[in-house]
């Protein structure tokens, strides 16, 4: 399994550090952003393979993040949406908005890794 460069966008510092520990522990490279705006900057500058995106954030949330990515044609990183909603409806909604994968809180290490790695293995969108 290849090592991925993953951008984590989440406003909760503790969740961010949890995700970083899990992903780095699995051999991936992780860059972090505390909100959507910083995430967009890093997406443009660091060109990650996967973006792990909290859909609900203050300032600039996941949905707005994806809309701007589409509008501005910001690279071809794959998106994994993270949200507290686990219903089929919200998963479909996220996919329609541009998510390639989806993981709902709370998640186990395995769930998170599976979602990120499977998405990273897929063809670039």
């Amino acid at each position, binding site marked *: 399994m290849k090592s991925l460069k993953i951008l984590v966008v989440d*406003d*909760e510092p*503790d*969740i961010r*550090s*949890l*995700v970083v*520990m*899990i992903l780095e*522990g699995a051999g991936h490279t992780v860059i972090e952003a505390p909100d959507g705006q910083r995430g967009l900057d890093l997406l443009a500058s660091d060109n990650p393979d996967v973006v792990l995106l909290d859909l*609900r954030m*203050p*300032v600039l949330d996941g949905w707005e993040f994806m809309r701007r990515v589409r509008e501005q044609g910001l690279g071809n990183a794959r998106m994994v949406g993270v949200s*507290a909603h686990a219903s089929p409806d919200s998963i479909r909604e996220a996919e329609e908005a541009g998510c390639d994968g989806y993981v709902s*809180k*709370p*998640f*186990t*290490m395995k769930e*998170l890794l599976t979602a990120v790695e499977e998405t990273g293995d897929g063809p670039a969108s």
Partner: protein
Amino acid sequence: VGPPVLKFIVVIDVFTYLNAAMGVGFLSLGVLAAWQWRRRGDPPSPYIALALASLGIIVILGLEEDIRGEQSEVLEFLSLVLFMASAYFLLLFRHSIIPLARVWRIVLSAGIVLSLVVLLVHPLPESDHPSYTPLDLVVLFYVIGVWSFCIGEPAITFWRVSRSRPLVQRTRLRALSGAYVALILIIFVAVFASIGGQPTAVQALTTISVLLLIPVLWTAFAPPAWLKRAWRAREEEFRLIEDLAVYADDRHEIAQRALNRAVRLAGADGGFIVSSEEIIAVEGIDTKEAQRLLDIRSARQEPQRWTEAGGQNVAIFSLRSEEGEEAMGLVSGRMAPVFGSDELRQLSQYAELVGVALARVRLIEVLRGQTESNEALLHAISDLGEGFVVTQSERLEYANEAYLRMTGYSFEELKDLPSLLELSLPEEREAHAERLRRRLSGGPVSDHYEAGLLTKDGRRIDAEVAVKLVHTPSGPRVISLIRDVTERKRAEAFRSQFIQNAAHELRTPTTALVGFADLLDSRRGELDEREMASISDALNRQGERLRVLVANLLDITRLQQGRIPLNLEAIGLEDVLNEVLESNPAPGNKSVTVERPIDMTVLADRLRLEQILTNLLVNAYRYGGRRIAVDASTNGDGVVIAVSDDGPGVPGDLVPSLFEPFSRGEDATKVGGSGLGLAIVRMMARAQGGDVWYDGRERSGAKFVFKLPRA
């Protein structure tokens, strides 16, 4: 030839046939009166029959003289006896109608007997052209005088009394008076004719005029039914008015009017109407008397009519009724010729009409009762805030107060709308119209649904509607019960949003706890010291966050349900503030200034007051500027406490929902908090009879103000 007294009847020989006709006329009248008395029970009494028959027999006996030229002495005396007897009978008749004083009865009876004795002792000469001695003249005038008095006095009395009587009685009494006068006329004409050898033509004329007077006697002494109807005709003109009166809707009023009409119609003295064992109308008598008559009636086996000991006639008529006993009773005086069979029949019919009228009123009363209870029901529905609407097709017919309040329209405005569907949401209108079409055509359609309504000022109301189709005499109507559920829906939406928010708030700490636990488990031994410390810090933070969140959620739930016990007491504000500041000191880079004096006393629950102050202070530490100030002032019956700072203040778009649960500024996650603090503060302030609000008038910084009642 008999005594000249009788010559009045046996006028002249050549008119024997006329005399015979006259005799037969009197006799027939007598028989007719007797027949009416027997057959119809009309009170004109047997006296009239006897008097008339006596006169008839006299005339017929007189025919002997016409034929033979002389009369036997026995028949002659018999004629005299009958003559005086007729006077006596006519007097008795008068006595039966208007009682005669006892002394007068004795005097007149004696006078009649005396006249017979005198005539027996001193018979008058029996010539057609007698030359009367003075004694003869005295006897003659005495006899004629007695007779005339017996007839004349009643004639005057009847007339005199008639003037104060009701119409039917008046007519009757005047007819009687006329008849008595007619009898006197007959006597005098006959006497005039028999004295002094009148020419034949004059004699013939007098005989014929006597014959013509007989019908007058007939109408008076034995009035036929048609004549009595004619007497009542004037009363019956009132019928129209009375029938209109029957359209009155008050039982007592109708009964009183109906009774008055019946009394007048019968020429009675009074009467009563009883309904459901209650005497609802009396006239001429009192209720006690009416009750007595009713008791007599129930004691006897349904006699419709009887005569009281005092001579009063009583008749009781059943009213056609399905409810208990209803009856009309009439009481007649002696003077009233009432209660012959034809009158009984007519009054029975009238009584049935009255019964129908009373039944109609009872129906109206029942309907009115129902209407009143319906109206009470409608008011009750209105008081509950439920709208009630009656529509004919799409047009409004009735709307209760609650519906008008709900929609903001006046009744007139709604009634003028061509279609009530105009109040529906445009997107729902077609569905409503289709539903109405199906309902009116009897198709399957739901009786209960939810709908949006537009108020006059353009607000949208969510309503629950229950509908029924009713068939009224004027066509189908749709009645709808409308409940405004806007508030309930809002509360439901709020609750579900609250739960969603709470779940979301729970997910972050839960995710951290679950994720770190998983990490610790699967990477045991691999984690270095720095990572372990970081994990430990995160677990502590998130654990605390979870604890606060759960505590706040419990608080808010209890407050919403009013389950927080409050112990209101007088509390010194300064005291409490000092305690709160002691346990929540300002962080190193911030300072709190208390503007003194702050020595007011408030009426509050100590624990909750501390919670409110703590919350506002901690909020200021977290979000506010460096300098924080607390001051208090009295305002009316309350104390106003303000916590302000020199920070950025609350963003304008956040102010309206500031005290709603989970309403937080965008950078709130940086500083923690559950998003429930201010919601709890407001609920606690209100639970203690106070309030809390954000004062956004300050140009810079945030200012939270809360008010509590002064102790």
